[in-house]
């Protein structure tokens, strides 16, 4: 089977049903589709095991925060790559901000360990079943998840921070 976006999408919809694979589009040649958190692990496992697809490489994971989308504020993007067929695809899962829980991917990809810790650190995603879900780049005592859109960068003109060495 030649892997084109249409073929793969048809195959996935046949397997999982239209209610679980939706909003598919192609922004930059990489097919992007959305699924639910109940199906994400089954979908990635299916892509991994299927003989025609062999999507067995996790390129990256990235969180995105859309504060205006009520009920689906947080998005987790998984980008996968079939090295066998040189075919990439992107899977998104949206979860509400008050319940940012996703199942862990570490049982399929060892690389997901730190990627999930990074997503926890910066966006507050909770990955159930993760072996060691603690902050990775920020200090452990930090009380918020800094990449969320409600936290602005430091005001460059603030004056309450007196630093005699750097004169500001």
């Amino acid at each position, binding site marked *: 089977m030649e892997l084109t976006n249409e073929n793969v999408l048809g195959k996935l919809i046949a397997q999982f049903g239209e209610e679980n694979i939706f909003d598919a589009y192609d922004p930059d040649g990489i097919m992007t589709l959305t699924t639910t958190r109940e199906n994400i692990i089954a979908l990635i496992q299916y892509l991994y095991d299927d003989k025609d697809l062999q999507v067995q490489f996790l390129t990256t994971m990235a969180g995105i925060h859309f504060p205006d989308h009520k009920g689906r504020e947080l998005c987790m993007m998984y980008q996968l790559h079939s090295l066998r067929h040189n075919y990439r695809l992107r899977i998104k899962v949206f979860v509400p901000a008050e319940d940012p829980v996703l199942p862990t991917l570490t049982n399929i990809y060892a690389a997901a360990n730190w990627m999930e810790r*990074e997503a926890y650190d910066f966006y507050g995603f909770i990955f159930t079943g993760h072996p*060691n879900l603690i902050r990775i780049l920020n200090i452990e005592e930090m*009380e918020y998840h800094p990449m969320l859109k409600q936290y602005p*960068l430091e005001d460059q003109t603030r004056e309450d921070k007196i630093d005699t060495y750097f004169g500001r």
Partner: protein
Amino acid sequence: MATDNKTADTDQLQEFRDNRDLKLQDKKNENLTTLNLGPTHPATHGIFQNILQMDGEVIMDAVPTIGYIHRAFEKIAERRPFYQITPLTDRMNYCSSPINNMGYHMTVEKLLGIEIPKRAQYIRVIMMELARISDHLICNSILGVDSGAFTGFLYVMQEREHIYDIYEEVCGARLTTNMGRIGGMERDLSPKALHLIGEFLKRFPKVWAEFEKMLTRNRIFIDRTVGVGAITAERALSYSFTGPNLRATGVDYDVRVMNPYSSYGDFEFEIPVGAKGDTYDRYLVRNEEVWQSLKIIEQAYKNLPEGSYHADAPHYYLPPKQEVYTSMEALIYHFKIVMGEIDAPKGEVYHSVEGGNGELGFYLVSDGGRTPYRLHFRRPCFIYYQAYTEMIVGGQLADAILTLSSLNVIAGELDA
């Protein structure tokens, strides 16, 4: 939302801390020694810590801690106009910053749909391959230093200075280059730059051959590196290894060939692969890649096409300074670009380049504003460094140092 999450987080954190303390307590009972490797240690070549549990000389367990030079680039990028993000990318893998710069430029060009002229693409290829040489050169010569051979390091370091001279001639800077612009290069290759590249191509092969001669068949070096820090292809793929570290295990994945960008399809070169994925294989793969990079530079240098060194994209590419003073249009574009008043189209792109350490990816989401809505860097170091524990456990401390330096973990890229 915030309060609930906070309590959940704090509880979880406490639980992990308790567990960790218990684990350490257990280990103490077994008469193991705890050793802090890092955060600042001459052999880590960057700031990151490994807490090792040692039984004599043998490593029983390791807990890596990273984030010592985390600078929140992804957050900063959400508040900066597109052209101000390039200097941030310099500081990721600072051993090969032109690759980062140009990878980022190509991502934005993909979003904007700009076609780049051939000449600009070839100049980019030359600069990126020079950067790859300087990156691999550092990694392999440091590997020599860590196994006790200092001479080779100083000898090839001089060549890195010559590469930096070329950078300086092309963009004015040496280490954090900020080279090129969105839409091409900021200026054409000057006659002096061309001369320096020509000289480098003549002089460097001899130097590199000598360096290889010193280490490749060196008995001590072989004893120290063969079978050290080995990883199988399956585990490496599971850990999403890319670049020389993956190729050393025998998987021929190279972004330059798999998804050619910037005219890499025009050049003849080979992808060296290893067999065992150990330190010696990683050394050999990097060595051979230097030769292949030289081959690519030679081809690009000989066949450098005529034409413009930048795309015709006045909305995004700064006009020449003399035109800004004389032409109204150029003045308007200059003002709008510098003030960050240019909106990018809506979109979502992923672009990856073969960086010094592997697939360096940029995932860019634009909501049509003056800054990216989200910019995620796929940093190869960050992803493969998590396998380090698995690679060193059961080995000796001295081997762990060699494994670390052969993985070429760059702290700037690790922490972003």
